[in-house]
């Protein structure tokens, strides 16, 4: 037997002996994702977050910061369609007097104002639906209701609320 042949048969022997332990390599997957897991935990448990961009918007008497993750493109929500996540931070004095905040791409109906922001009222979340035919000229409608029964609406261009969504629409 020549040298290379010997080496090949050596490899074959090792392979025959060890191949069925290779499933252990699957454990590499969680190791790869460990960093993203730790970041997500920091985000969920301590709400620490980077890469947020904010736009100030005035809705009636209220001043809100509309936030998005600058890099985050719309995502496909099975059964619901394309959605883009926003957060909203009302001014400190507004929080207790606001009873609901809604977001909608394009003008909402007169009884449904779009997606309601939920979670911590100091910094709540909503997934805005992009609907059937989103365009880059669409406006984002923010509806704010006060506990006193008042209702105010304001709009801002999609470009201002979420440049990444406009880029994403252009690339499609």
């Amino acid at each position, binding site marked *: 037997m020549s040298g290379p042949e010997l080496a090949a048969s050596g490899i074959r022997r090792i392979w025959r002996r060890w191949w069925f332990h290779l499933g252990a390599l699957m454990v590499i997957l969680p190791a790869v*994702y460990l960093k993203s897991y730790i970041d997500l935990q920091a985000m969920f448990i*301590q709400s620490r977050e980077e890469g947020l961009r904010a736009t100030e918007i005035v809705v009636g008497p209220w001043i809100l910061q509309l936030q998005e993750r600058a890099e985050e493109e719309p995502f496909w929500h*099975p059964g619901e369609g394309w959605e883009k996540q926003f957060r909203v931070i009302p001014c400190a004095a507004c929080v207790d007097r606001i009873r609901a905040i809604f977001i909608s791409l394009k003008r909402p109906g007169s009884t449904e104002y779009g997606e309601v922001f939920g979670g911590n009222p100091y910094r709540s979340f909503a997934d805005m639906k992009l609907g059937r035919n989103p365009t880059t000229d669409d406006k984002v409608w923010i509806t704010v209701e006060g506990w006193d029964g008042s209702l105010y609406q304001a709009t801002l261009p999609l470009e201002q609320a979420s440049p990444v969504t406009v880029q994403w629409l252009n690339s499609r």
Partner: protein
Amino acid sequence: MTVGSANVRKKSRSALWLAIHGWLGLPIWAFLFFICLTGSVATVSEEIIWLFEPAARSNPPSADATRLGYDDLMKRVESQEPGTVVMFITVPVKDIYAIQFYVGRPDGTELTVYVNPYTGVIQGEKSTFDLRELLRELHGWLLIPFTAKYSLGWYIVSAMSIPLMGSLITGLVVYKKFWRAFLRPRLRVGAGWRIFWGDFHRLVGLWSIPFIAIMSVTAMWFLIEAVIEDSGHKLPGEVEHPHVARRHVPTGATRQTTQAISVDQAIEAARRSFPNLTAAFIELPTDAYHPIEIYGRGAYPLVFQIAYVSPYSGKVLGVRGLGDRPALALVTESMRPLHTGDFAGLWLKLIYLFFGLLLSTLVFSGMMVWTKRSVRATAQVISERRRRPVAAELGAAE
């Protein structure tokens, strides 16, 4: 056909089943072992946290201390952290644990704090490193994050239910008259490793039949569940939660003054629908249209009875009891608690841990048996099949 050839056929068929049994597990044994082991430890992760995190314990100030109501707890949390909004309250099954309040702080952060059920003192914050969460995610989806769809890891792990169930079925087929071994267990020590691992594999497998059946069926449901939801369909019995209609939302100055119904009052209202309900989970509204949601276990502890209570009138807007679910939903909603064993208390968790560890050893011993025997057996089956056409040709030539 002679008796002899029927026997040979039977033997060859059972050798084939054995080969299938081996091949189902062997190439993935190490991964399956990892899943079983992390899953086993995950069943007692809460108990592990209790051991190492004093803030997670209920710490009664004296032996005869009584637990406070939720309204008192809420007041004391508010006085310790003014402006903090409580979003939900988790009450562990055992009273040796602190109550967990998930709160939103004025700086925009959200986190879980441990509250002493006797004094209302905030004993600590849940740390960023949450062992329970880590084990669950490692076991359930290999830490691969979810998007709007299920994580890829969820699919990989839940697909392991297929070889697991296949191993159970083929194992029962190849283990002739396995029920007899319940009465005559056999574990030969000192007769060589192959004999020991073989006996061990059969013995453990035999006593784990119900556990493996539960794990593989529930895990297979997790796979089906992901496929259903990711294809945009609804799960059985999934319904919209009731909301407070806009016309029923009164006007007021602030949330605190308008949402007049307290947690204890809401639980009282829920008890009108579900007498003797003990709240296990309470979700509080953070906008005007969500009801207070009270979750509690009833006679069938695997699914929650839920009452939706108006935070303005205290009226029950809707309930979801056992009878309000279609039969199929009762089955599918039971899958998760059946898989985790977290619905009855410590004793069941310890049983799950025990059988989980047994299942891990089952995977390991299967690999040991294979390396010591089945490699040879498979080679034999294959070579026999290869030889047969040659023999037939020889027969034709004669």
